[in-house]
């Protein structure tokens, strides 16, 4: 579980940094509509989802006990809470910045969904690592 959490944290950080650099660079070169293409680097975060395939269970070995389940459950709650705070902030900030009569491009909506998903998995992974103390020892 820790190895998978590390994989997800590393791939997500890489994806966010690469996307930010690409968006800034494309914005400076080509302007806004084309700069959004830099978000394609967020696909790197998808590698984190391959954790169960990369770190396969060794046959006959117990890899998860009660404590691990409790940690995973708390981490899932932390992920959900973080995602909800993200959605709440992203939904309320434009209302207060632009005013109730303002409008935004509909292309922001899928980004909100994607951001909430990444927040969930990232916070879940960080919460797992925090509960284990970041180290390899249980």
């Amino acid at each position, binding site marked *: 579980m820790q190895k998978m959490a590390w994989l997800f944290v590393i791939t997500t950080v890489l994806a966010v940094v690469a996307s930010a650099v690409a968006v800034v660079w494309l914005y400076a070169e080509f302007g806004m509509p084309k700069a959004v293409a830099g978000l394609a680097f967020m696909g790197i975060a998808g590698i984190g989802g391959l954790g169960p395939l990369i770190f396969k269970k060794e046959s006959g070995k117990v890899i998860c006990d009660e404590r691990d389940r409790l940690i995973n459950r708390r981490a899932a709650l932390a992920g959900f809470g973080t995602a*909800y705070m993200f*959605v709440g902030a992203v939904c309320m900030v434009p*209302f207060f910045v632009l*005013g109730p*009569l*303002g*409008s935004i491009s*509909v292309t922001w909506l*899928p980004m909100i969904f994607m951001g909430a998903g990444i927040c969930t998995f990232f916070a879940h992974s960080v919460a797992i690592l925090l509960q284990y103390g970041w180290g390899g020892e249980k």
Partner: protein
Amino acid sequence: MNKTQKSAWFGLLSYLLTVAIIVYLGVRFFVLKSLPQGFLGRGWPIIAVYGLVVASIVLIRRKQSPAEPDSDERDELIKKRAGQISFVSVWLLLAIATLIPALILGEAGSIPVYLLTLINVGVFLTAMLVYSVAVLVQYGRRSKGEKS
């Protein structure tokens, strides 16, 4: 009725009250285009919310007997399942609320920002509704719990 069931009932009542207030305010603002007059006309949502909060605090804290535990293994399992169901339903609703308008309106489309606040409130209310209903369904909607 144990603490988990009472909490679920109050969650359900809170959902219904919130929906009633939103519908009432929506009709007043967008259909009748006038604010209600008088103290009760304007203040009933606040009075109702405070009443529900006070009643929930008093009734949820009151136990059937002094020896009654706050929750047992079965309650924890029911809450865990309800949380999982609520989690999945919130993600489904969020996906529908964000992806379908983008597909319908296309890249050039735009939406008013107050719809974002409705999405936010809608997601929260759905989580509360689904969790409460899932808890009550698992207990069998009766005060004594499900049949064995």
